[in-house]
């Protein structure tokens, strides 16, 4: 069958029953009470939650074959929790698990592929898979398709009962013996633990793992003891060089700077650019540069923002310190500067990923966003966006919060160059549709700005940009320009076998990724 973005999708994929995508705002929650596996607990004075090893904690939690385990990705590429836990699980001979982290970071030695090959894991549900794991999945590593969800869709799926977590493993930069935990202090401080809140409050068992045990009570505490079953102290939760990596450097690429500046100009030209506006810019090279250009324009015009949302970078912390933004609502800290700032600054706060982005709650913060700046691998002439797969069909990224931000913000701006090397990025049809075109207001490239005539703010944005003498082009023009530079690419050939399901934020299927033909 074909879904509302014209993608051919099977009705069933293995055991997965497909609900086709019908539109960005058409679906509603079931109306049932939210699902959870959390049970009441009992502890009396003198009880101890500390266990000597991860293996002991896995045993105590009663992890069995076929269950679901979860992790957060706040330690990014420096994470050593996932590797240690899966090694312990393998040693106990537990198999066929569903692995459901908030995102799969690219861990090596051990690699997730090893645990799939030996049968420890047989299903993966995450925001993205790349590197060795992504390649292996596209080559048909797994029997069951990988389910990819946006940041907003994950808490929705948990509460809808689609993703019930048996054991949540929560890596913490600091914790006390009774389970109060935080990412904000300790030698491996990562800042916000916002992605783990929904796991902690809905998993059947919660295990906190830390390398920095502090005296009771741990303060600040993002994870509350009332949800935590066991605490384990290990030698190392991660690589401090990678977790605590400093601020990302400002790009020097003139093309990226030009695109970033244009995106800032689009925001500044909009009538929504006035006191108390809100924005989210993200962590890519263009995004960080765009944040700086936006700050310049705010200073020049004397405009202050109410809040910035999502993953926070040093560039946004800098704006806060200049008094340009009142509150930073931080579901993730992208660098050490942001991780430190969350401790020191009263207006930089840690938020639950669910309040950031869950579409089926009583309100997510991104619905209050005026501007969302998004990176993309590809965009097509229907304004559909691909943030997952590269030019040869390989896995390049994760869904992250991109589709959520596009749907929530008034004006969503996709920034990308028209070509990368010989790969056209503005195409007739994206290889994988992740963000539907109806939620994309503008595409900003080095060769011009294209507005989406089907977007709800088209008329007013067009008027504002024309008033500011900004040159507009059509998306078709950008596509033809890209093709005239690169030539017409041969289509990527796939088999019929579906290896990844791409869910939209409401849990419908917006696209699938098929096995690449060798």
């Amino acid at each position, binding site marked *: 069958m074909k879904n509302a973005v014209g993608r051919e999708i099977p009705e069933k994929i293995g055991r997965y029953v497909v609900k086709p995508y019908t539109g960005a705002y058409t679906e509603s929650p079931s109306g049932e009470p939210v699902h959870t596996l959390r049970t009441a607990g009992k502890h009396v004075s003198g009880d101890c939650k500390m266990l000597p090893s991860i293996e002991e904690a896995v045993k105590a939690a009663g992890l069995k074959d076929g269950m679901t385990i979860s992790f957060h990705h706040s330690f990014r590429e420096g994470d050593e929790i996932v590797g240690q836990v899966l090694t312990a699980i393998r040693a106990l001979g537990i198999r066929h698990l569903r692995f459901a982290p908030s995102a799969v970071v690219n861990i090596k030695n051990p690699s997730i592929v090893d645990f799939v090959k030996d049968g420890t894991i047989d299903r993966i549900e995450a925001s993205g898979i790349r590197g060795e794991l992504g390649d292996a999945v596209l080559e048909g590593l797994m029997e069951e398709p990988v389910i990819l969800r946006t940041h907003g869709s994950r808490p929705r799926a948990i509460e809808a009962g689609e993703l019930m977590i048996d054991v949540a493993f929560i890596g913490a930069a600091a914790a006390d013996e009774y389970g109060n935990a935080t990412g904000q202090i300790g030698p491996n401080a990562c800042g916000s633990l916002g992605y783990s809140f929904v796991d902690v409050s809905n998993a059947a068992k919660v295990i906190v793992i830390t390398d920095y045990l502090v005296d009771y009570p741990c303060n600040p505490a993002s994870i509350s003891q009332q949800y935590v079953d066991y605490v384990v102290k290990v030698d190392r939760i991660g690589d401090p060089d990678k977790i605590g990596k400093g601020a990302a450097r400002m790009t020097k690429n003139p093309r990226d700077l030009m695109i970033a500046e244009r995106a800032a100009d689009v925001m500044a030209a909009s009538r929504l650019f006035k006191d108390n506006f809100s924005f989210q810019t993200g962590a890519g090279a263009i995004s960080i540069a765009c944040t700086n250009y936006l700050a310049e324009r705010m200073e020049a015009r004397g405009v202050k923002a109410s809040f910035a949302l999502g993953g926070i970078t040093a560039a946004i912390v800098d704006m806060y310190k200049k008094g340009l933004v009142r509150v930073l609502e931080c579901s993730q800290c992208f660098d050490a500067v942001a991780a430190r700032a969350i401790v020191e600054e009263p207006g930089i706060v840690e938020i639950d990923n669910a309040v950031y982005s869950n579409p089926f709650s009583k309100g997510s913060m991104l619905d209050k966003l005026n501007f969302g700046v998004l990176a993309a691998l590809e965009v097509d002439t229907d304004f559909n966006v691909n943030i997952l797969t590269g*030019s*040869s069909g390989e896995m390049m990224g994760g869904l992250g919060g991109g589709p959520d931000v596009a749907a929530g913000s008034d004006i969503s701006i996709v920034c990308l160059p028209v070509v990368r*090397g*010989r790969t056209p990025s503005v195409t007739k049809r994206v290889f994988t549709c992740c963000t539907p075109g109806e939620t994309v207001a503008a595409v900003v490239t080095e060769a011009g700005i294209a507005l989406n005539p089907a977007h709800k703010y088209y008329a007013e944005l067009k008027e504002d940009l024309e008033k500011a003498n900004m040159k507009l082009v059509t998306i078709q023009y950008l596509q033809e320009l890209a093709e005239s530079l*690169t*030539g017409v*690419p*041969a289509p990527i050939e796939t088999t019929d076998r579906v290896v990844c399901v791409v869910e939209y934020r409401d849990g419908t299927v917006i696209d699938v990724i098929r096995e690449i033909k060798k």
Partner: protein
Amino acid sequence: MEIKKPAVAGTLESSDCQITIRPNPGKGIDIDLESDVKMMFGETILETVRKTLEEFGVTSAEVEIRDKGALDCVIKSRMQCVICRGAEERYDWSKEDEKEWQKKQSV
């Protein structure tokens, strides 16, 4: 032209390609292509390589291309260069005289 000695043109920088040519007496044309965009443009690249060899009348050569996503015009230029180097001849610039780009006014 006859390829008399091995020659190299280009770099391994992004958006460039490095082409090596070697004599291959009596054994025709052998092309070995490695490309970041082989799936999308493998055939197009091979066509450009063959066409350029033909233009220069090269009938036997071993050609090795390490492509980092170069545009077609870049591949063509690198080919022209590597053929001339391998053949130990200068490029005949008079070939360019009648071409369209010569007639365009410079900006």
